[in-house]
């Protein structure tokens, strides 16, 4: 008889839904069904069972032909590559647990690497803005229980965080929000009429890239000062209407995504979005929160923060931690040819970096540690398959509101397959031997 494992945490996005139920076979080796998860989370659990899954490390020769190698060989290659490099880049960390991140950072410190996570192409500009102006934020529990004015700015949770609206932001009935979505006003700002925007009470279809102007205009409207006829393609009356809607709420939350962080103006967009939130606090309670993508990108920032004082792009090559976005960030380092080896774990820069950066990875000694075979694996010299964290390994992950949640293990990994943490510990041991720091 199959058994059901409850309170399973989904290792896909930063919403980190913790109410999944997974039906596993009698012997506990196979996932049969996944309940409560969104379609993406379900796919992640079920794909771990794929028959064509890689189980043995693969090494590429000069011509790009792959051959199977042993785990010992993979550990040796990785340790030698990191020790021989003057300035290796250790990138990723967002699809693994905090325990593995911590071991990875220990290696980075020993070999003088740059440690960067996926925030660098996601909410890195948000982190810069938070350091510039601070942030009035809250937890998703507070949003569920208190928020009656919800803004989604430059994000599309219907596609990217599919259960965010039903669990926390729009539909649930909370302690002070007993009428659920009926008592909430939803505002969406997006240049497209997205599936999220179609559900909104007010959609401001902004001209792409003009977020700074519109945020500025909202600040003006909140103060009751005059505005031009249109700003960023939005009529004055609509802006004033949105300003009044926000001011009249009991608790305003602004969620923002890549539309703000990846358009020109970047961190300045977020600076002014935070300033708008601060202004709203003169009239009501308001908070702002980034919609984090990977399920533990927030955790990576946290662990880097505890250990080195900075949340991403930490350069340890001089023996102490330096942080300088634009200089120590992955894409800038790669494009300028400033790193001489690349180690990737828990992300896929091959698919998600500009091609000019991917070309640089392809021409360097490189290792990709990932359960999937990805475009990064296709260009890296070594692909090391590992267990799925959150499915085959437990461990700590941070939700988008900085709440740590212990993920659960539901099935065993294929026999002999290491977890990220185990692989990193073996590399660390070998690095210590090579460096003579037992």
């Amino acid at each position, binding site marked *: 008889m199959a058994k059901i494992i409850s309170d399973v945490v989904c290792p896909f996005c930063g919403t980190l839904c913790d109410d999944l139920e997974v039906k596993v076979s009698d012997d506990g080796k196979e996932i049969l069904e996944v309940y409560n998860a969104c379609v993406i989370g379900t796919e992640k659990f079920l794909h771990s069972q794929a028959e064509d899954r890689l189980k043995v490390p693969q090494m590429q020769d000069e011509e790009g032909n792959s051959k199977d190698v042993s785990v010992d060989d993979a550990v040796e290659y990785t340790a030698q590559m990191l020790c021989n490099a003057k300035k290796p880049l250790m990138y990723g960390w967002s699809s693994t647990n905090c325990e593995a991140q911590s071991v990875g950072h220990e290696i980075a410190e020993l070999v003088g690497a740059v440690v960067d996570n996926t925030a660098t192409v996601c909410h*890195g500009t948000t982190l810069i803005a938070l350091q510039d102006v601070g942030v009035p934020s809250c937890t998703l529990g507070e949003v569920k229980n208190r928020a009656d004015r919800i803004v989604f700015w430059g994000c599309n949770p219907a596609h990217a965080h599919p259960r965010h609206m039903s669990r926390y932001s729009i539909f649930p009935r909370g302690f002070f929000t007993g009428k659920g979505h009926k008592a909430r006003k939803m505002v969406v700002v997006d240049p497209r009429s997205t599936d999220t925007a179609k559900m909104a009470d007010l959609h401001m279809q902004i001209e792409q890239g003009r977020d700074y102007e519109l945020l500025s205009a909202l600040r003006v409207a909140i103060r009751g000062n005059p505005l031009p006829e249109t700003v960023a393609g939005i009529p004055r009356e609509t802006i004033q209407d949105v300003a009044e809607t926000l001011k009249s709420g009991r608790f305003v939350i602004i969620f923002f995504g890549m539309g703000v962080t990846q358009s020109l103006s970047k961190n300045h967009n977020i600076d002014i979005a935070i300033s708008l939130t601060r202004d709203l606090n003169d009239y009501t309670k308001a908070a702002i929160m980034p919609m984090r993508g990977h399920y533990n990108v927030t955790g990576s920032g946290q662990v880097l923060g505890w250990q080195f004082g900075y949340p991403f792009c930490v350069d340890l090559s001089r023996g102490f931690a330096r942080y300088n976005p634009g200089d120590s960030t992955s894409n800038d380092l790669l494009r300028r040819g400033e790193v001489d080896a690349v180690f990737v774990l828990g992300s896929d820069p091959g698919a998600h970096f500009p091609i000019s950066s991917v070309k640089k990875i392809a021409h360097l000694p490189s290792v990709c540690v990932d359960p999937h075979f990805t475009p990064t694996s296709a260009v890296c010299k070594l692909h090391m398959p590992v267990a799925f964290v959150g499915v085959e390994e437990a461990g700590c992950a941070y939700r988008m509101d900085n709440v740590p949640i212990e993920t659960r293990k539901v099935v065993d990994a294929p026999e002999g397959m290491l977890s990220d943490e185990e692989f990193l510990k073996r590399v660390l041991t070998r690095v210590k031997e090579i460096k003579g720091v037992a």
Partner: protein
Amino acid sequence: MPEIELNLISGRSIQQGVSMEAGKEKPAYTKACGIIEMDDADFKRLGAWRNTNVRVTSEYGSVVVKAVQTTQGPHPGLAFIPMGPWANMVISPKTYSTGMPTFKGVPVTVDVAEDEPVYDSLDLVRKACKGEI
């Protein structure tokens, strides 16, 4: 053949997420992300049928993808390629000292390339890295 200018953004779609988790080497990933979503008005300007292969070119590179009718429109003049290696062939790698490439708001030209193939993700990245495309 006509060539039209559009403003390109990239981003997530639910099909992108599902197919990514199901394996980036599978045809479903190419079907979900090797596309450009355009408005009817832009199809008319281009003089192309829906589901035609097109070449998207920017200052930073070019890529062949399938042009499909947008479901999250209207947004004339704006084009959308889901995040992934196809979009990353043409987006701006400039970070302006923030570390963040400019994934949204890249001027591109689009022209019909009916006879050219849409490569799968692994082929696309490998060929681009070898300088074959």
